[in-house]
């Protein structure tokens, strides 16, 4: 008589992700970020009450990958669209997912004012220091010296201004309860990112105010690097301009270390 073996599933596709291959480049941070968002939604049991707003940018097709309700917003307007949704459904979970061009350039006004109104919305901010979708032009977050197709010779503060630290800018607003900057370059940092995302989601569930998680995210394609080199660049170069860690936390949550 053979013995019945019991299997325990320890890893699989989160329900909040569809079984659809993504179009992201190898080594791109978007795919990791998608998975983290999906895992957090699953773990908090939020999938069926979530309405997501993807950006215009490389993640514009996120509605093909996420397995919950989603609506397109014009470039930069995700937080205005999300505001409208949240006012109709205050009991639902509203999420925006935005790149640096989307959130920190064309959508700066929408970002600052939604945050300042303390909208009960959770925002995932993908900072890859470049415009990915349109082919590597300079972003407001491009770091000094970094090459971009519209910053030949690298970003020069006199010519292009200095990189914008939107997370720190938002932190001064009273409507904002939680901002953390994490990186998607190593297992250790990705774990921290997941914790931060979950905490940001909790802020909305507890009706505290606006919360944002910034994710330093590799764009190997437009940085013209291998995935490995891109991850190293995040860890070694990008963090100098954008130091990791909690930027603001007035949630009163006791962090379970």
């Amino acid at each position, binding site marked *: 008589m053979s013995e019945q073996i019991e299997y325990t599933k320890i890893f699989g596709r989160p329900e909040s992700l569809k079984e659809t291959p993504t179009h992201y480049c190898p080594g791109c941070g978007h795919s990791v970020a998608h998975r983290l968002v999906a895992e957090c939604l699953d773990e908090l049991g939020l*999938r*069926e*009450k*979530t*309405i997501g*707003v993807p950006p215009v940018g490389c993640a*514009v097709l996120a*509605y*093909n990958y*996420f*397995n*919950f*309700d*989603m*609506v*397109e*917003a*014009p470039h930069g*307007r995700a937080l*205005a*669209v*999300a*505001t*409208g*949704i*949240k*006012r*109709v*459904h205050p009991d*639902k*979970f509203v999420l925006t997912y935005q790149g640096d061009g989307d959130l920190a350039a064309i959508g700066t*006004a*929408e970002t*600052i*004012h939604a945050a300042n*109104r303390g909208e009960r919305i959770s925002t995932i901010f993908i900072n890859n220091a470049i415009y990915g979708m349109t082919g590597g032009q300079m972003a407001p977050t491009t770091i000094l010296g970094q090459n971009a197709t519209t910053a030949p010779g690298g970003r020069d503060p006199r010519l292009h201004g200095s990189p914008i630290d939107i997370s720190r800018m938002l932190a001064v607003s009273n409507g904002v309860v939680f901002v953390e900057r994490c990186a998607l370059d190593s297992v250790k940092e990705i774990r921290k990112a997941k914790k931060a995302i979950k905490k940001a989601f909790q802020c909305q569930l507890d009706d505290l105010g606006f919360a944002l998680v910034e994710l330093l995210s590799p764009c190997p394609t437009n940085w013209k690097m291998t995935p490995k080199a891109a991850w190293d660049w995040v860890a070694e170069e990008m963090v100098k301009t954008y130091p990791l860690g909690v930027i603001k936390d007035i949630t009163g949550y006791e962090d379970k270390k």
Partner: protein
Amino acid sequence: MLMNGSQTVGEAAVRAGCRYYFGYPITPQNELPEYLSARMLDVGGTFIQGESEVASINMVLGASVAGGRAMTSSSSPGISLKQEGISYMAGMELPAVIINMMRGGPGLGNIAPSAADYFQATRGGGHGDYRTPVLAPAGGQELVDLTFAAFDLADKYRNPVMILGDGLMGQVMEPVIFPDFIELADLPKKDWILDGCKGREPRAIYSMLLGQQGELYKHNLHLQEKYDRITAEELRWETKGTEDAEVVVVAYGTAARIAESAIEELEAEGIRAGLFRPITLWPFPLPPLRELSKKVPRIAVFELSMGQMVEDVILSVGERAEIYFHGLPGGIIPTPAQVAGFIRSAVKGDGTVGRRIDV
């Protein structure tokens, strides 16, 4: 009730079930957001003064996709900023009501009444192959009736609808009667909204159609089919005294009201002038005007712009009747006597006021 036009629209909107208003101040329509900021508190709705017109129209987009009856209002320069959002909503097939109390342009122009945004309103304004129904009240009670109609049309066709008024209409006080509040629960159910996917498959609403199988092509044909239906079914216009008229004045909105007074003055002189007033500017009531032009020798078009609607009149009338045009730039409201002068000159065909259009 005695109310100014902007407040009238606000009260009508609330009674028509609008619970979400998003807007940014601009003269001459500020009485509308001011009125609604208080009224939404009474009815448990939402009023947000957005940080810009761009943000406001996108809040409307969000509220609409979530299933609420949503509205924004502005005046000319602000409407220019809303065009991106209106184009997206047309592409995504989302209902919304947009009020434009027009002022003088181009640019910052001035805050006096004008009707110079006809092209922008009826031709799309934003990018892409899309249309928005445009309703042009002549003020007073019609502001109430067309506000109700606008919300119904928007829902029926899942499309943004614009009400095109002007600064004068917004500020003049007139007596109006409001219908009762509609019951939100009685509105037809929307089976496409986003409210979380509990108990169903997730939905995505978007206008980006990259598919190589001609997805966008098919979508635009689908939209066109809808616009054709609207054109066939939703034309609105009004005629007065057009039987046996020797001249028919075509005018909309405030211009139509001035023309009406002018026509009354001319009656005493024995001039038989009728009025044709388009109420839907898009779709333009082309077939009825075409029919009329077979019976009257002269059509006199009067606009508070330098000539925009006249192009639709030309399309309707062709060579079936003589067309005369008189337009005034924004900022000056003519007296009925001035407009009577134009009509008189059109009847004589002497062209001393306005000009004859050669088709």
